C-alpha cells in the first residue's frame, strides 16, 4: 500500500507538470483542445492525490509500523480517530494533507470554470499546477510519508522492518480541536491560492477589470473564514491543552497564521473600492500576492525549523526550497505588476479626502502595519542572530506593546468607516453620524472611570467597542426604517430582509459586531488573576470570589497514560458550582511526555481555570494554580458570530426571500434618475 501511495503521488506530479506545459502551450497557440487536456490532467492529478491520501489513511488505520510516518505518529493504544488524525501529526503526513487540500481547491476551481473565462483559465490552471507541483515535489522527494523503516543486517544488506509498536501521537495533539484545527487552518492558507492564480492570469491576459475580483471574492471569503476559524480553534487548543492560562502567546506559528488573515482582511475591504469605483487596482493585486506569499511563508515558518514553536514541526531541510520558491513567485509577480502598470490605472479620481474610499485606504494601512509588526517581531530574532551573532527573544511584551494600540485604532476605524459616505461626506452629515456613537461611548468611558477602572487600554477598548456597536446598530436601524417605511414590513422583518437583500454589506456588519464582541473578550485579559497554592486534602484556596476545597487525590492508569488527579470542590460564596478534577498525565509512548489537563468553569462573566501543577518536594502537597480570566467566553462567542456573519455574506443571492406583497421600489433606479434630471 505504501508503494501504491508513493506511485500515486509521483503520477500526480507528472500530471501537474504536463498540465502546466499544456495550459501554457494551449494558451500561446490558442488551441482549446490542448487547454482542455491540461484541465483534465489537473483533475486527474487531484484524483491520484486522493488515492495517495487514502493509502496513508489506510496504513494509519491498520497500524502498519513499517511506514515511518505511521511508526512516528501513532501507536496501538491510540483510539482510531486519533490514528486517522495522526495524518497531520507529523511533518510528512501533514504535507500530504496540504497537497490534498491544494488539489481539492485547484480541482474545484478548474471544474467550476470549465466553460468560463477561457482567456484566463489556461494561466489559472498553470499557476495552480505550479503551486501544486511544488508541494508534491517537497512531499515526494524531501518529506515522504510513505518511506519505510529499514534495518541493516549483519551482512550489510538493508531490510525493511516493522517495530512492535509506534512512538505514539504527541499527547498535546490528543484533543478534539486538534482533529479539526489543522485541516481548517490549511483550508485558510491554501484558499488564497485561488485569488492569486486569477490575479496572475488577469495580469498576463491584461484583463484587469473587475472580473478576476468578482470571480474570486467568494473564494477569498471562504479562505479568510477558514483561516480565522483555524486561528480561533488554535487559541482554544492552547487555552485548554497547554495549561498556562492564556489562549494567545504570540508564538511564531500563531503569528504566521495571523499575517495572511490581516492582509486578507485588508484585501476584502479594498476590493470593494475597486468594484465600486475602479480604484486601487495595483494595490489589490499586490495584496493578493502578499497574502498568498504569507500563506507559503507560514508553512515555511512551521516546517523549516527557522524559529522555535510549540506548533512547529522539527527542523527539516525544506527551508531553502521554500525561500527559493517564494523569491521566484515574488519576482515574477512584481515583474508582471510593473509591466502591466498602464493597465492598472484607476478609472476614477477620488472625489474627496472625507470619503469611505479614504477610510478604506487608512484601514488598509493600519492592517498592513499590524501585519508588518507581527512579521517584524517574528523575524527579528533571526535578523538579530544574522547581524549580531546572538539570538534574542521577541515575546509577548513586545507584541502587546506594539499591537494593542494598533488593534484599538483598527477597532476605531471599524466604527468610523461606515459613517463616511462613498465619494464625499459633508462635515455636517459627519457630525450627525458621529453624534450617537460618540454620546454612548463617552457615557461608557465616564461610567467605567467612575466605577474605578483605571487601566487605560481597557477603558479605551470598552469605549471603542461601544462606539462601533452604536454605529452598527445605527446602520441596521436606518436601513430597516427606510425599508419598513417603503414596504410596510414590520421592523424586525425589515432587518432580516435588509440583510438578505444586501448580504455582503450587512453580513459585513455582523462580522464587525463579532469583532466588537471578540475585543470585549480580549480586553478581559487586563483583569486576569492568578494564584498558586500547595494543598492537601481538606485545604482551601480563595481567588476572585471563588473558593476551592481539595477533597481527594487519586492516581490511575489507562492503556495510553498514567495520571494523577486532584479533586476540588469549587464554591461561589456558599454555593457549590462545580467539582473540578485537574490532572497530570504521563504518556507511556514516545518520549514519555506529560500534559496538564486543565479544569475549566466558564461563564460569560469569567473563567475559573484550574491546573494541577505538581507535587511538593516532600511529596505531600499538591500544587494548585488557579486563574480567574474575565470575559474569555466572549472571545469564543464572538468567533461564532464572525463565522455566521461570514456565512451570511457567502449566501447565494436568491430572489424573493421573505418578500412581501408590496415590493420595495427600486431606489437605485430612482436615484440614478434624480441625478440625471439634476
Amino acid at each position, binding site marked *: 500500500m505504501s508503494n501504491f501511495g508513493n506511485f500515486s503521488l509521483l503520477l500526480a506530479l507528472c500530471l501537474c507538470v504536463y498540465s502546466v506545459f499544456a495550459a501554457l502551450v494551449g494558451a500561446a497557440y490558442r488551441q482549446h483542445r490542448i487547454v482542455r487536456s491540461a484541465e483534465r490532467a489537473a483533475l486527474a492529478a487531484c484524483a491520484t492525490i486522493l488515492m495517495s491520501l487514502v493509502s496513508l489513511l489506510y496504513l494509519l488505520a491498520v497500524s502498519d509500523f513499517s511506514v515511518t510516518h505511521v511508526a512516528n505518529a501513532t501507536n496501538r493504544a491510540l483510539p482510531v480517530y486519533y490514528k486517522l488524525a495522526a495524518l497531520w501529526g507529523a511533518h510528512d503526513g501533514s504535507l500530504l494533507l496540504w497537497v490534498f487540500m491544494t488539489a481539492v481547491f485547484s480541482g474545484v476551481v478548474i471544474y467550476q470554470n470549465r466553460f468560463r473565462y477561457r482567456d484566463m483559465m489556461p494561466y489559472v490552471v498553470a499557476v495552480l499546477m505550479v503551486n501544486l507541483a511544488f508541494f508534491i515535489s517537497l512531499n515526494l522527494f524531501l518529506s515522504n510519508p510513505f518511506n519505510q523503516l529499514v534495518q541493516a543486517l549483519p551482512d550489510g544488506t538493508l531490510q525493511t522492518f516493522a517495530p512492535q509498536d509506534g512512538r505514539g501521537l504527541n499527547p498535546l495533539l490528543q484533543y478534539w480541536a486538534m482533529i479539526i484545527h489543522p485541516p481548517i487552518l490549511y483550508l485558510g492558507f491554501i484558499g488564497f491560492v485561488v485569488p492569486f492564480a486569477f490575479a496572475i492570469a488577469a495580469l498576463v491576459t491584461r484583463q484587469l477589470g473587475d472580473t478576476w475580483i468578482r470571480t474570486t471574492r467568494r473564494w477569498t471569503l471562504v479562505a479568510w473564514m477558514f483561516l480565522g476559524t483555524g486561528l480561533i480553534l488554535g487559541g482554544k487548543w492552547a487555552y485548554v491543552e497547554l495549561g498556562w492560562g492564556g489562549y494567545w502567546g504570540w508564538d511564531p506559528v500563531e503569528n504566521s497564521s495571523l499575517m495572511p488573515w490581516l492582509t486578507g482582511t485588508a484585501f476584502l475591504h479594498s476590493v470593494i473600492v475597486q468594484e465600486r469605483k475602479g480604484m486601487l487596482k495595483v494595490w489589490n493585486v499586490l495584496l493578493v500576492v502578499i497574502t498568498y506569499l504569507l500563506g507559503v511563508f507560514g508553512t515555511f515558518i512551521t516546517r523549516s525549523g527557522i524559529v522555535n514553536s510549540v506548533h512547529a514541526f522539527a527542523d527539516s531541510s525544506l527551508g531553502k526550497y521554500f525561500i527559493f520558491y517564494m523569491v521566484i513567485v515574488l519576482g515574477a509577480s512584481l515583474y508582471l505588476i510593473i509591466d502591466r502598470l498602464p493597465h492598472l490605472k484607476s478609472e476614477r479620481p477620488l472625489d474627496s*479626502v472625507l470619503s469611505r474610499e479614504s477610510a478604506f485606504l487608512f484601514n488598509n494601512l493600519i492592517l498592513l502595519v499590524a501585519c508588518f509588526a507581527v512579521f517584524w517581531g517574528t523575524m527579528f530574532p533571526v535578523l538579530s542572530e544574522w547581524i549580531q551573532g546572538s539570538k534574542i527573544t521577541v515575546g509577548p511584551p513586545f507584541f502587546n506593546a506594539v499591537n494593542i494600540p494598533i488593534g484599538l485604532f483598527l477597532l476605531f476605524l471599524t466604527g468610523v468607516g461606515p459613517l463616511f459616505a462613498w465619494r464625499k461626506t*459633508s462635515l455636517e452629515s459627519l457630525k450627525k453620524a458621529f453624534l450617537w456613537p460618540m454620546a454612548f461611548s463617552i457615557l461608557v468611558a465616564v461610567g467605567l472611570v467612575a466605577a474605578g477602572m483605571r487601566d487605560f487600554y481597557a477603558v479605551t477598548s470598552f469605549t471603542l467597542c461601544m462606539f462601533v456597536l452604536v454605529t452598527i446598530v445605527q446602520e441596521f436601524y436606518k436601513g430597516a426604517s427606510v425599508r419598513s417605511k417603503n414596504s410596510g414590513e414590520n421592523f424586525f422583518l425589515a432587518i432580516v430582509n435588509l440583510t438578505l*437583500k444586501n448580504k455582503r454589506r450587512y453580513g459585513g456588519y455582523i462580522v464587525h459586531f463579532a469583532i466588537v464582541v471578540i475585543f470585549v473578550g480580549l480586553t478581559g485579559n487586563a483583569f486576569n488573576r492568578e494564584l498558586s497554592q500547595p494543598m492537601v486534602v481538606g485545604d482551601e484556596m480563595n481567588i476572585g470570589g471563588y473558593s476551592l476545597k481539595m477533597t481527594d487525590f487519586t492516581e490511575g492508569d489507562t492503556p495510553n497514560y498514567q495520571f494523577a488527579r486532584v479533586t476540588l470542590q469549587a464554591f461561589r460564596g456558599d454555593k457549590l458550582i462545580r467539582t473540578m478534577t485537574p490532572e497530570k498525565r*504521563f504518556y507511556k509512548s514516545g518520549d514519555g511526555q506529560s500534559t496538564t489537563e486543565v479544569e475549566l468553569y466558564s461563564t460569560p462573566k469569567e473563567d475559573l481555570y484550574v491546573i494541577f501543577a505538581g507535587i511538593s518536594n516532600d511529596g505531600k502537597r499538591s500544587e494548585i494554580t488557579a486563574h480567574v480570566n474575565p470575559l474569555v467566553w466572549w472571545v469564543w462567542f464572538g468567533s461564532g458570530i464572525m463565522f455566521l456573519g461570514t456565512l451570511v455574506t457567502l449566501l447565494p443571492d436568491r430572489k424573493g426571500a421573505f418578500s412581501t406583497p408590496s415590493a420595495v421600489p427600486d431606489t437605485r433606479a430612482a436615484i440614478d434618475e434624480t441625478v440625471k434630471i439634476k
Partner: protein
Amino acid sequence: MRTRRLAIAVLLTASITGLPGRAGAQKDISKDYKEVSNRLVCQCGCEDQLSVCAMQNCGSATPMRAEIRERLLKGESVEAVVNAFVERVGKKVLSAPTMKGFDLTAWIMLFLMLCLGAVAVSWIVVKMACPAASRVPAPAAAVDPRVERELQDFEEES
C-alpha cells in the same frame, strides 16, 4: 503500584519548586513575581516566557523561578532581579528587545513603517482626489434635502 506512584511523584515534584505563594512566605510577592516571570524567558529551549513554560521538571524554569522568589523575598526590586539575570545569562533571557543598540531597531522600524505608510496613503489620497471635485461644495450644502435623503436610501440599498 508502588513503582507507579513513585514514578508519578518524581515526575510531579521538582516543577513546582519556586512557585510564589508557598506556605511560609513572609510577604506577598505575587505581583512582582508575575512581572519578572513575564519579562524573562525560560532557557530550556522552549523560548516561552518563564510564566508560560509548563514543562515538567524543567531544568531551566525551576531554578530560575526559585531564584526570583528568593531575591524578591530578600527585598530586591523587579528591575534588580531582571538585571541580575541579564548580567549572568545575557540579554537573550529577556522576553522583549531592549531599547539599546541594534535592538532599538525592533521598536523604531515599526514607527518608521507607520509614518512612511501614513505619508504614502496621505499622498495617494491627495493625489487621487480630484482638485476640481474637491472644490465642489459637499452634498449636504449643495443638494436639496430630498436628494440627500434619496442618496442616503441608495446607500442603504446598495
